[in-house]
């Protein structure tokens, strides 16, 4: 519970972590024992041999810079100890810092640097180089011919990635027996941390929810039509967010579905960063590769299936346009038709002189004019 409380405290916006609360009693006990062991003794010290946290652990360390922007240099040691970078020494990324107290930082971190972490079964120090190479080739990588504006607008690593916090794994995803077997040979701390590191990436393409992915791609970027126009993107890209939200995929994601396709589901392979224009033969959405992408979710994908427009533009396609109009009429016709009939009935009754009354268990009282005309007063 300690770790859970920590997770919820430190990152309230990641609400789905609360799913953990619904774990069964048996699993909870198992997890509690396991994760309690994994949290005890965790501190950022491992990565902070040079004691950078001596200053940076205080939340008010920071300043208002010359442009009036608030700069915070605070690193919460409890959170850092539960992030994927917890064992990476500060200066493996912040290589430009050579003395303490250091000069104002003007350089950016290069995620392609090698750090002093050796992944299991590897002789080389770890680096994000491979994925960065994939990314640089993709449509989002900065190219020589790009305009300055485009270069500045293209997202960099930190634009999408904050230092990821380990999320506790939902009980139904855990294979307790397998995990216990690991403990026969390996240290508890190492196993549980490795388990947390891997498991949340296991069953989905990304560890983020479809809603988070859609928000990530849209916010401040693809949904900003003015910005996209300036960057001279294709017409389809320009209206991509809007048309996605019109689509079945978009609507179910916006309604909370965890299984419907988000941007990454179709536009990237398991490498996540290999997004290309659809004309590019490397693109997952290229007509030659599209069937494979659809097959991730749909059975019986054939030539005709892959022709379905997943970013439908209701105004441009005449068939969709008329279908949309018909459905609109069906919707408004049924709802307002019913309400209209009820309204007409009410007006009619009022006109006939029947009184509207809620008290004493009846809604209408009195005798209608028509009845009086027909049968006369009593």
């Amino acid at each position, binding site marked *: 519970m300690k770790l859970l409380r920590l997770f919820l405290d430190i990152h309230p916006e990641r609400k789905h972590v609360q799913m953990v609360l619904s774990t069964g009693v048996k699993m909870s006990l198992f997890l509690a024992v396991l994760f309690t062991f994994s949290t005890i003794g965790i501190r950022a010290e491992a990565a902070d041999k040079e004691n950078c946290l001596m200053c940076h652990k205080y939340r008010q360390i920071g300043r*208002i810079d010359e442009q009036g922007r608030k700069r915070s240099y605070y690193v919460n040691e409890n959170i850092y100890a539960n992030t994927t970078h917890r064992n990476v020494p500060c200066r493996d990324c912040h290589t430009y810092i050579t003395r303490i107290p250091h000069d104002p930082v003007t350089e950016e971190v290069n995620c392609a640097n090698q750090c002093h972490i050796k992944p299991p079964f590897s002789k080389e120090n770890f680096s994000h180089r491979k994925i960065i190479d994939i990314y640089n080739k993709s449509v989002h990588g900065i190219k020589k011919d790009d305009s300055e504006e485009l270069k500045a607008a293209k997202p960099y690593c*930190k634009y999408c990635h*904050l*230092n990821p916090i380990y999320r506790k794994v939902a009980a139904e995803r855990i294979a307790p027996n397998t995990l216990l077997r690991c403990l026969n040979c390996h240290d508890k701390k190492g196993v549980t941390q490795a388990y947390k590191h891997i498991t949340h990436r296991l069953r989905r393409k990304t560890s983020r929810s479809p809603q988070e992915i859609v928000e990530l791609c849209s916010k401040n970027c693809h949904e900003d039509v003015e910005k996209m126009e300036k960057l001279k993107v294709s017409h389809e890209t320009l209206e991509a967010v809007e048309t996605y939200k019109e689509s079945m995929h978009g609507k179910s994601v916006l309604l909370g579905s965890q299984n419907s396709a988000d941007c990454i589901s179709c536009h990237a392979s398991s490498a996540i960063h290999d997004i290309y224009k659809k004309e590019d033969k490397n693109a997952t959405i290229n007509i030659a590769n599209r069937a494979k992408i659809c097959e991730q979710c749909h059975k019986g994908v054939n030539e005709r299936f892959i022709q379905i427009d997943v970013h439908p533009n209701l105004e441009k396609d005449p068939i969709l346009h008329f279908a949309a109009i018909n459905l609109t009429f069906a919707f408004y016709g049924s709802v307002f038709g019913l309400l209209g009939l*009820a309204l007409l009935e009410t007006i009619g009754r009022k006109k006939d002189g029947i009184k509207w009354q809620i008290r004493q268990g009846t809604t209408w009282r009195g005798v209608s004019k028509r009845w009086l005309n027909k049968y006369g007063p009593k």
Partner: protein
Amino acid sequence: MPGEPKRLEHPASVYLIGAIFMLITLSVLGVAIYQVTFSPEGPAVLVPLQKKLEEKKKSAILEEVRRQEEMEKHRHFHNMVEYPQLPEKDQPVCYICHSSYPHSKNKKVRSLLNMHTQFFVCETCHLEQKKGMKIVYKWYNPYEENPPGPFFGTSYDPETGNLVEVEDQFSKIAPYVVKGNRLVSAIQVQNAPLARDYVRVRDKLTPEQRDNVKKKFHVNIKPKGHECKVCHSKKSILDFKKLGFADNRTIDLQELNIKGLITKYETFYIPNLFK
């Protein structure tokens, strides 16, 4: 039949069913109205009006500040945490102009000095100590005269070695002037007569007059605060024990971390920093 007495004594279930139907009807009506007026799926007849109203409230400054805050989250990378902030009316007077990040001149130490605003009010370092003035330091909290603690930064968690997280997020060390048997707060709070009067009339003052009043706020304030050694040494003006600091934390504050940093780098890297 008409003329017959009306049946009034319906069973309770009828009312219940009626209420459910009423609820359904009202929900459908509500959703239908939303569908027509604001929903992006419908004709959105009131959306232009909404946009027009929003346009009036729009502020370029506010938008830019929010955008910068969003960008800072990404530049920062290390999961920024939002802490509860004192409402502006409960902050001491200084914060209105100087904010929680008042230091910006000395490039080497500005951030380190700003870091201290988590623990100190401005007067703790910047109070001009007149001759014969006796000052004691204790924890100040705008909501409690004698906050009980525990306070952040006073002890380590024996399990993790990290500083213990505490509930009290607002208490800071503040100076009090000893007058006989009494301790008089040296903080300028917004409730003080001068501050209240200033807030009341500031819009009526000319810029020069306003400047004149602002100077009054600084009568007992020295522009350069204490040097590090004044607190971070065995002869510290702060009575760490009395302030509730654990013994090992006190030693760290007096001896290990800070003093080490100061003595090690005083002459080598930062020759003029601590003079």
